[in-house]
C-alpha cells in the first residue's frame, strides 16, 4: 500500500484527529483492569491469570513497535492504521469468542497477542506523519496523539464498566461486551484510516522549516549511535519514576496518611488515582508543547531534575502535608506523561524525520523495561519493609530514594546527548527521505 498523499488544500488540522482516533482507541489497554474481576469470577481465574492478556498486550506493543517500525515507515500511516484497526478489533472479537466458549486461552491470544500487535503498530502509526505536517511544532503535534493514549483509558474505564453492568458479569455478558468493544473501536478507528494523509511536499507550511532540514539518520544507523542509547536511558528512567507512583497510587496515599489525623478513605484514594490520570494526560500535551519553545534537552532537564526534587519532597515531608504530597505526585505524573509525548520530537531533532517513526518504535523497548522495573522496585521494597515491621510512609522511603537515583542517572544521560556524528547520516537525505515528493514526481 502506498502512502496516501494529501490533495491540494488538505488541512494539516485533519491529521491530529486521525491520530487521536487511533490513540484514544488503543489507550483502552490501560482500562483492562475493569475486566479482571468479572473474568476471575466467571472463569475461575486467579489475579495473576486475569492479568495475562494485558501483560502480553504490553509485551507485544513493545515488540511490534520495535520490529514493525520500518514497515510502518515504508508502507505509510494508512497501512499502519489499517493493521492497527484489524488487529485491535479482531483481538476483541477473538476474546468475545473465548469468553462465550469459556476458553480463556483465546482471550489471552486475542486481546494479548493479536490486540497487542495493534497496540504497537497503532502507537507509532501517526508519529512520523504528524512530524512531517507540523515541522514548526512537532512537540505539540505528537503530544496531541500521545495524549490520546492516556485519554483512551479515561473513556474505556467508565464505558466498559457500564457495559458490564448492563450485559452482566457472567461469561456471556463479558463476551457481548468484548464484541461491542471490537465493533465500536473498528468504526471509531476508521476515521483515522480514512483521514490520514502524508503531505504533498516536504514543506506543508510555507512559513515553517521542513521536517527534513538538518541531518537525517536511518533507523538501522540510529540504534548504533550513543545518542539513541542515552535517550533510551532517559525514557526508561523517567517512565520508571512515574510508574513508581502510578502503580501503587491508591495504597500509597492511604498508607502515607493512615496514622495521621487526616486519613484517606478508599473513595478519596480512587479520586487521587483519577487526578493522577488527569495530570498524566495534561503533561503529555502541555509539557510536550512547551518543549517546542524551550527545547527538548531543557524540558528533559525539568522532567528529570525537578522530578527528583519532587520525590525528595515527598520522601522528606510527604506524610506531614497532604496538599504537598498530592501536588508533588501530580507534578511527577505530568512529567511521566510529558516524557512519553516529547520523545518523538527529541528523536526528530537528533535523527531527522526520515525514519523517526521506526526509531521511536525501537526506543519503546525502554517503556517495556520500565514497565517491569518500576512496579518491581516499589512492590518488592514495600513488601520487604512490611516484613521488617514498618508501616505508613516508611514502606516507601527507600523506593523514593532509588527513584531519585534513577532520575539522576537519566539526567546525566540527557546531558550526554550531543548532535549525531556525520558518519551516521544518510548520504543523500533529501532524495532518500522525501517519500511523498518522490511519489508525486512518479505519478506526475
Amino acid at each position, binding site marked *: 500500500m502506498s502512502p496516501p498523499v494529501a490533495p491540494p488544500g488538505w*488541512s494539516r488540522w*485533519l491529521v491530529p484527529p486521525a491520530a487521536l482516533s487511533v490513540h*484514544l482507541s488503543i489507550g483502552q489497554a490501560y482500562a483492562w483492569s475493569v475486566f479482571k474481576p468479572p473474568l476471575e469470577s466467571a472463569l475461575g481465574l486467579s489475579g495473576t491469570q486475569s492479568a495475562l492478556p494485558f501483560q502480553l498486550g504490553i509485551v507485544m506493543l513493545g515488540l511490534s513497535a520495535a520490529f514493525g517500525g520500518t514497515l510502518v515507515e515504508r508502507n505509510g500511516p494508512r497501512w499502519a492504521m489499517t493493521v492497527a484497526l484489524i488487529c485491535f478489533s479482531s483481538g476483541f472479537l477473538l476474546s468475545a469468542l473465548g469468553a462465550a466458549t469459556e476458553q480463556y486461552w483465546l482471550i489471552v491470544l486475542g486481546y494479548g497477542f493479536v490486540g497487542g500487535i495493534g497496540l504497537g503498530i497503532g502507537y507509532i502509526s501517526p508519529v512520523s506523519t504528524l512530524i512531517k505536517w507540523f515541522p514548526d511544532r512537532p512537540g505539540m503535534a505528537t503530544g496531541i496523539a500521545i495524549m*490520546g493514549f492516556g485519554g483512551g483509558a479515561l473513556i474505556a*474505564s467508565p464505558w466498559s464498566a457500564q457495559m458490564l453492568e448492563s450485559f452482566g458479569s457472567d461469561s456471556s455478558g463479558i463476551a457481548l461486551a468484548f464484541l461491542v468493544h471490537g465493533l465500536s473501536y473498528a468504526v*471509531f478507528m476508521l476515521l483515522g484510516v480514512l483521514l490520514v494523509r502524508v503531505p504533498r511536499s516536504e514543506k506543508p507550511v510555507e512559513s515553517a522549516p521542513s521536517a527534513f532540514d538538518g541531518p537525517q539518520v536511518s533507523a538501522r544507523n540510529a540504534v548504533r549511535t550513543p545518542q539513541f542509547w542515552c535517550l533510551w536511558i532517559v525514557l526508561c528512567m523517567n517512565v520508571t519514576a512515574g510508574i513508581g507512583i502510578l502503580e501503587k497510587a491508591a495504597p500509597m496515599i492511604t498508607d502515607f496518611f493512615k496514622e495521621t489525623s487526616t486519613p484517606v478513605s478508599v*473513595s478519596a*484514594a480512587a479520586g487521587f488515582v*483519577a487526578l493522577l*490520570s488527569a495530570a498524566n494526560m495534561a503533561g503529555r500535551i502541555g509539557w510536550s508543547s512547551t518543549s517546542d519553545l524551550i527545547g527538548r534537552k531543557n524540558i528533559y532537564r525539568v522532567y528529570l531534575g525537578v522530578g527528583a526534587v519532587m520525590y525528595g519532597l515527598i520522601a522528606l515531608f510527604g506524610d506531614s502535608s497532604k496538599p504537598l504530597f498530592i501536588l508533588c505526585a501530580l507534578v511527577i505524573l505530568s512529567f511521566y506523561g510529558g516524557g512519553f509525548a516529547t520523545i518523538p520530537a527529541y528523536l526528530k531533532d537528533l535523527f531527522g524525520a526520515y525514519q523517526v517513526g521506526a526509531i521511536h518504535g525501537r526506543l519503546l523497548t525502554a517503556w517495556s523495561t520500565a514497565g517491569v522495573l518500576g512496579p518491581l522496585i516499589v512492590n518488592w521494597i514495600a513488601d520487604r519493609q512490611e516484613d521488617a515491621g514498618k508501616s505508613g510512609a516508611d514502606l516507601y522511603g527507600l523506593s523514593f530514594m532509588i527513584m531519585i537515583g534513577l532520575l539522576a542517572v537519566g539526567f546525566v544521560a540527557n546531558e550526554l546527548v550531543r548532535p549525531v556524528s556525520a558518519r551516521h547520516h544518510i548520504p543523500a537525505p533529501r532524495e532518500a527521505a522525501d517519500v511523498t515528493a518522490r511519489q508525486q514526481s512518479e505519478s506526475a
Partner: protein
Amino acid sequence: MSQPDSSQSPPDRRPLIALAWVWVGAPLAYGLYELVQKATQLFTK
C-alpha cells in the same frame, strides 16, 4: 486526458475538520467528565 482546472479552488475543508474533531472530542469529553466526577471524591469524601 483532460487537465485539472487550475483556477478551481480546493474544497472548503472546515466542515470536515469540525466533524473530525467532534468525532474524537465527544468521547474524550465524556471520559474527562467521568474523571472529574471521580477526582472530586478526593476532596469531598
